[in-house]
């Protein structure tokens, strides 16, 4: 069966909540075509917005300029969703399982409150990747987010479990208020990394401009879990999967001592 391909007819004027599309694996192509989505105060059928081809409703492809489409893949289960371009905000929010592959950029709150599966963004992502929604107390609770470009501020804010991988740079407040889990950044990070971090790990390839004063220098160590952690990423199509980028020797800073203080910033050493 070929993937169910939705090609955008024309870019909508208003932002569109595309979350109903997450039910696709349980529907027939005709039922997917009849799904209704909101754009401002108007409701559209999916086939009013997209040309639809293919049969496999577990395997969706979105084509066209989808930057005004929010909540793509929201709460999805067992759905393989590819966006051949960029998407709007809240992409992959609360996703349970499956994959969301954005071949362009993603707007704010990508993979926020993710529960499982893989969210891969080939371009860059906005602020609050893997974070909690405003007012909520827990961000991502499982799964992996891979961003091949850069991410904005507050990446992994209140992340509870799971892994956020950033091949590019991260903005300010990276890993802020981390509850547990891991945020790994290959590029540079902005100001205040690990602010308010309770538990969990902020793994950095490059030393930040400054380490927050509420972190204690624990020295340089060889940590046995790191080879295992990197081995767990080998199946990803990512620089994180390349053994040449793996390491087990790190400079460890424990903190944030202004919060619970059981977390750490690990910076590649040697």
């Amino acid at each position, binding site marked *: 069966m070929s993937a169910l391909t939705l090609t955008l007819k024309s870019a909508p004027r208003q932002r569109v909540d595309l979350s109903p599309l997450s039910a696709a694996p349980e529907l027939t192509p005709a039922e997917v075509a009849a799904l209704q989505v909101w754009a401002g105060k108007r409701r559209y059928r999916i086939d009013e917005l997209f040309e639809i081809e293919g049969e496999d409703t577990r395997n969706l492809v979105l084509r066209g300029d989808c930057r005004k489409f929010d909540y793509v893949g929201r709460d999805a289960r067992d759905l393989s969703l590819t966006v051949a371009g960029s998407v709007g905000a809240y992409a992959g929010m609360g996703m349970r399982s499956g994959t969301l592959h954005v071949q362009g950029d993603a707007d704010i709150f990508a993979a926020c409150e993710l529960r499982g599966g893989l969210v891969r963004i080939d371009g860059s992502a906005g602020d609050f990747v893997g974070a909690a929604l405003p007012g909520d107390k827990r961000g991502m609770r499982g799964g992996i987010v891979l961003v091949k470009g850069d991410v904005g501020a507050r990446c992994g804010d209140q992340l509870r479990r799971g892994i956020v991988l950033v091949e590019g740079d991260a903005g300010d407040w990276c890993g802020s208020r981390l509850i547990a889990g891991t945020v790994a950044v290959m590029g540079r990070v902005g100001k205040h990394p690990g602010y308010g971090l309770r538990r969990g790990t902020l793994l950095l390839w490059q030393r930040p401009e400054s380490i927050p004063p509420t972190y204690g220098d624990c020295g340089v160590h060889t940590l*046995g*879990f790191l080879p295992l952690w990197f081995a767990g990423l080998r199946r990803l199509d990512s620089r994180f999967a390349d053994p040449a980028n793996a390491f087990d020797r790190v400079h460890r800073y424990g903190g944030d001592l202004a919060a619970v203080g059981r977390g750490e910033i690990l910076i590649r050493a040697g």
Partner: protein
Amino acid sequence: MEINGVHIDDTFAEAFPMKATRAIITAQNLEWAYHSARAMTGFATSVIACGCEAGIERELSPEETPDGRPGVAVLLFAMGGKGLAKQLETRAGQCVLTSPTSALFAGIDGGKPIPLGKNLRFFGDGFQISKQIGGKRYWRIPVMDGEFLAEETTGMVDAVGGGNFLILAESQPQALAACEAAVAAMKRVPNVVMPFPGGVVRSGSKVGSKYKALNASTNDAFCPTLKGVTRTQLSPEIESVMEIVIDGLTKEDIEKAMRAGIEAVCRLGAGAGIRRISAGNYGGKLGPFHFHLREIMA
């Protein structure tokens, strides 16, 4: 049945159901993995008094271990799940956690999960860190040489304990040489351990005793120095009997190990003083697993 002049008795070994688990110990080098594994599987020859039976199953190359370091696989067997879990935890805590550079991983993915690092983590006094990698949880416990890494659980499966065979020889050195050959061959069989010292038992037991406090005592029928004063099973030329006990994850594993061991003994043959192969059983009352020597060697 006779193989290379060695008589194979028409009898069977009697084994019983056990619970088993496997743990993988890695370290900076094989020597330190062995230090830890030997300590963990020490004093674990018989459930009669040790709480569990355990042994080193085999060496693991860095490619075979979760963390890419050299390691060894150990198997532990006990009569019940609770006892096994307690023994595993106690031994892991005292023998692996304490051993420099060691790490501890599950060796069985299926079965019922039992704690491996799950409770050892509390040694970290709140500084322990959990990491979920590939759907499994690991604990990083800060220790004085760095960090002790332990997987949260390992799998417990049904297993078989007490497979055995007896080597009857013309002299003690000949019996021991045959046992050494057998154990060397059996160590190449996966999923089994021979839990006694060097894999060999010289004090085979029978059920019961004249002393009320004891539930097992020397197997006088196979003691060569008692040939003239008890209902012996030994002919005049037999001067020494040694036993190899095998615990395995399945009946088939024990059969393979017994066959490999008996073949190795028979290769030495009557010329090396080996006269008979026999087996220990209790008339079928002890356990449901019967290993008939002649069927195994057919």
